[in-house]
Every structure is written in C-alpha cells, then in structure tokens.
C-alpha cells in the first residue's frame, strides 16, 4: 500500500484506519521506503543512444565454437566451467572418438577419461584437419523462468528438492535446442598440419578423404544457482563470481559417419599429430565402447568414482569432499544428467538422488 496507488482503497484501507498494529507497521514500512528512495536517488542520466548503439554494433561479435559453451562464461578461463562443460554438455567431440563397430553411436553408460586441458584444446582444433560447419547452430539462451527453459529445450526442467547449505537460491536457467555439427575430413589439410608439426600423416583408411562425421547434441537445459557474472575487468577469474551449483540435463549426443565407420574415424583422429598419448591410451582402454560415453575429466578436477544414483542407476562422481568442486553424472533413459558445483561430493550425490 505504501507505493501502490491501486491498493489505497477497499477492505484493506478500511482495516488500516481502524487497526493500531497495522498503522504502526504501515508507518515503519513507509518510513523505510521513503528513506531508501531518498538514498537511492541518482543524478539524471543523459544518454546519446545513437552513439552508444554504434559502439555496441562495432564491438567484436563472438562466434559459436565447435563445442558448446555456457552463456556469460569465457571458455578456458574457468576450470569449474570447463569441468561442467566437459562433463555435461560439451562431450560431443570426445563422444565421437569412441571405438565402436557401427556407424551410429548412442551411449548408455559412463566411463571417466582423465584428460589435460591441452588434450581438450587439441580436440577442439580439428579445423586444421578438415572443415567444421554447423547445420543447426547451437543457440544457448539464458532465461529467467523454468517455463521458458522448457519451451526452448523441450525438456522438463529438473527440480532440486533441497539445496546444499550455503548455495544461493538465486537461480538462472540456460537452455538450448538441438545443434548439429558436421566435420568433413580433408587429407590435404591434415597433411599440411602434419607438415607444420614436422611429421607426416599416418596411413589413413580409404574413404576417409571427404568422409563426414555428424554430431548431434542437445537439446539441453541447466539450472544455475548463484550468480554468473564476468570479471569486472580482464579475464582474472578471481574477480569472477562463479556459479555455486549447476544442474544440467541433455539428450545424449549422437554421432554418425559417412564413408568410414565411426571407429575408423576415431582411430584416424587419435592418430593425428597433437593428440597426447595419455588420451589415446585412455580412450582405447574403454571396455565396451559401443554403449559407453566417456566423460572427460580435467585432471585438475581430481578424482572420479562409481556411484549409485536414485537407488539403481550407475553414475559417475567427480571431485571430493573439500568443497572446492564436485559433481555427479548419470544417464537415464537416454538423457544425460549432471549436478556440478563448488560443493562437496556428498552434497552433489544428495542433490542427484532427490532430483525429480
């Protein structure tokens, strides 16, 4: 009633006239409102919209990379974000690099693959060996309500039953529809890249030249608790406010190939100059690759272990109980779920167990 003119009438107003308690509260509230209004006054702003628009229009535009990234975050600048991106959504590239016998790959279970940031960088630099194009651009959007996130992604937004202690209830939603990337291998480009690295290309399967690897990722939806904001200046991550908890859900990525099988593609890609022997060995160590989704875990993120989620589902727990960072990932009915944040591992498991 203090600052809403429409409320100054009817039953409430009559009650206020006759109730001493309410009158006293009204006086306090209106006093607060007046005081704060006075303190928050600011000099009038005179803006030149045309020149401001010119500045914004000429600002360098960011282009989507081959790999997903969360909005409002700088890839590579934040280990936690990178961990999330690799663990939940940006698994497309490594997912394609799995040995299997057919031309189609849809994962059902998870296997941890420790990687270094340099390994991941080398995977994202496939453009040196062919052409990468998006037939459906990833369009991640940040929205303010679960309903909007649902509309964009078509996925039900997971509900967190109880937040771990210390996690802000301020929530932002990120959502995107399906995105499809096509990588077309070029022997000439690969040879040039190899020459630049001072080596030659290994023997390649016939048919690899011009072969296409199609990766479909998403749709995806994420709830982000805490504030995600860019550093106020530069890329100093100590100035950034990192999200405390991210609960994500994405349809498992699907990879198909033409001319050669995905396993041949995978072997050829792994044999290219720049891929570390560690990553190659880790991927080759996967037991049953036809149904396994490897989750690349940056080595900085610590340990990983098996965990049972919601009583029956085999999942993967990352990190430890120090609170520095932990997460849980699992697959249920072809959908990959992830709970990752600056929380303890046990808290992440609790959130996962109670997710509806």
């Amino acid at each position, binding site marked *: 009633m203090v600052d809403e003119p429409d409320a100054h009438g009817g039953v409430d107003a009559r009650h206020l006239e006759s109730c001493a308690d309410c009158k006293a509260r009204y006086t306090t509230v209106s006093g607060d409102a007046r005081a704060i209004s006075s303190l928050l006054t600011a000099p009038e702003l005179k803006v030149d919209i045309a020149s401001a628009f010119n500045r914004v229009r000429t600002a360098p535009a960011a282009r989507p990379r081959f790999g997903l990234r969360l909005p409002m975050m700088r890839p590579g600048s934040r280990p936690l974000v990178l961990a999330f991106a690799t663990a939940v959504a940006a698994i497309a590239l490594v997912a394609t690099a799995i040995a299997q016998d057919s031309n189609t790959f849809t994962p059902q279970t998870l296997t941890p693959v420790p990687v270094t940031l340099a390994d991941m960088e080398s995977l994202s630099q496939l453009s040196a060996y062919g052409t990468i194009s998006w037939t459906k651009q990833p369009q991640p959007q940040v929205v303010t309500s679960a309903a909007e996130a649902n509309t964009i992604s078509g996925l039900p937004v997971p509900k967190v039953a109880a937040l771990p202690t210390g996690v802000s209830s301020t*929530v932002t939603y990120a959502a995107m529809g399906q995105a499809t990337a096509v990588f077309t291998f070029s022997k000439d480009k690969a040879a040039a890249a190899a020459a630049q690295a001072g080596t030659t290309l290994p023997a390649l399967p016939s048919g690899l030249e011009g072969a296409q690897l199609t990766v479909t990722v998403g749709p995806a939806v994420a709830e982000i608790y805490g504030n995600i904001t860019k550093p106020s200046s530069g890329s100093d991550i100590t100035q950034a406010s990192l999200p405390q908890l991210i609960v994500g859900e994405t349809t498992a990525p699907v990879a198909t190939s033409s001319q050669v099988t995905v396993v041949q593609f995978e072997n050829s890609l792994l044999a290219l100059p720049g891929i570390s022997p560690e990553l190659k060995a880790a991927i080759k160590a996967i037991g049953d690759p036809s149904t396994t989704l490897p989750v690349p875990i940056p080595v900085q993120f610590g340990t990983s272990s098996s965990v049972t989620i919601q009583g029956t589902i085999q999942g993967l727990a990352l990190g430890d109980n120090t609170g520095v960072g932990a997460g849980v990932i699992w697959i249920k009915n072809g959908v990959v779920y992830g709970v990752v944040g600056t929380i303890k591992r046990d808290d992440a498991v609790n959130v996962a167990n109670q997710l509806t």
Partner: protein
Amino acid sequence: MELGARRVTTERTDDGSFEALFTAEYARVAGIANRVLMDQHEAEDVAQEVFIDFHRLHSASAQYAPAWLHRAAAHAALNRLRGSKRRQRREVAQATQESDRTVDPQKLFEVSEDRRQVRQALARMAPKPAAVLVLRASGLSYAEVAQALGVGIGQVGTLLRRAEAALRKEVTSGTSL
C-alpha cells in the same frame, strides 16, 4: 541463391529488431546501472556490455528481452560495485562532483556520506534483494520487477519491504537519516 537471400533478410530483420530494442531500452538499462554506480561513464559501460551479451546469445525479438536486460543491468552493476578498487576510485570522484555542486559543505558531506554508505550496504546485500531495490528505484513497475527477477508479482511487495528494511537497518546507524 535463394537461401543466401533468405539468410541476408533474416539477419537484417534481427539487426533491425536489435536496434529497436536498443533504442527502446538503452536509457532504462543505463539508468539501472547508474542507480547503483552513480557514475555515468561506468553505467553506460555496463549497459553496453549487457546489450552485447544479450545480442550474442538471444534473439532481439524474444519476449523476455527487456526483463533479461533489466536483471542483467542490475546484477552487472552490483557486481561491479563490489570491485573494491573501482569503488574507491568512484567514491573519490563522487565526492569531488558533489562538492562542485553544493553550497553547503556540511549538508553535502552528509548526503555524500549517506550515498556512499548505502552503496556499500547494497554491495554487501544478497543479490536478489539488492536487485529488487535497484530495479524499483529505477522506476520499474511491480510487474516489470517480477518479470526481471522471475518471481510472482505478488511476491514483489514483500521482497521490496524486506529489502528496504534490511538496507535501512544496515545503513541507519551511520547515516544522517
């Protein structure tokens, strides 16, 4: 050829929508940031970053565009307020500006000190109540505040009252209120 023509048309349409959105909302978005930062240059800096972020990730014709911009402006400005070095510089600049404008040094000092304290208190508050105060003080209606923060319109009044009480309690002891 036809595909290319269609793409160009789509891009133009989106650019046109973005310019319309910018024209309609820029002053308000900068105003929200200015309410927090009390510095035109910094406020416009924040507003332009917010629009760039929005344009990078969203369609300008999205229904939620104004709400997104308002919320982002409040949070970005509050976040910037928390940067201690910038805050110190701003306070020095602010004090100088105020002393240029006022004829009563004592009164001016009080006003300046109150504003400094209220902004320090804002920076210490939880993001949501701080944003409620800033958005409402910037002239947004209850419905607009509700949309920006993703809460029901019925909650805005309560959120606002609590935030006002919390902020006043935080600053009253040290201000001339």
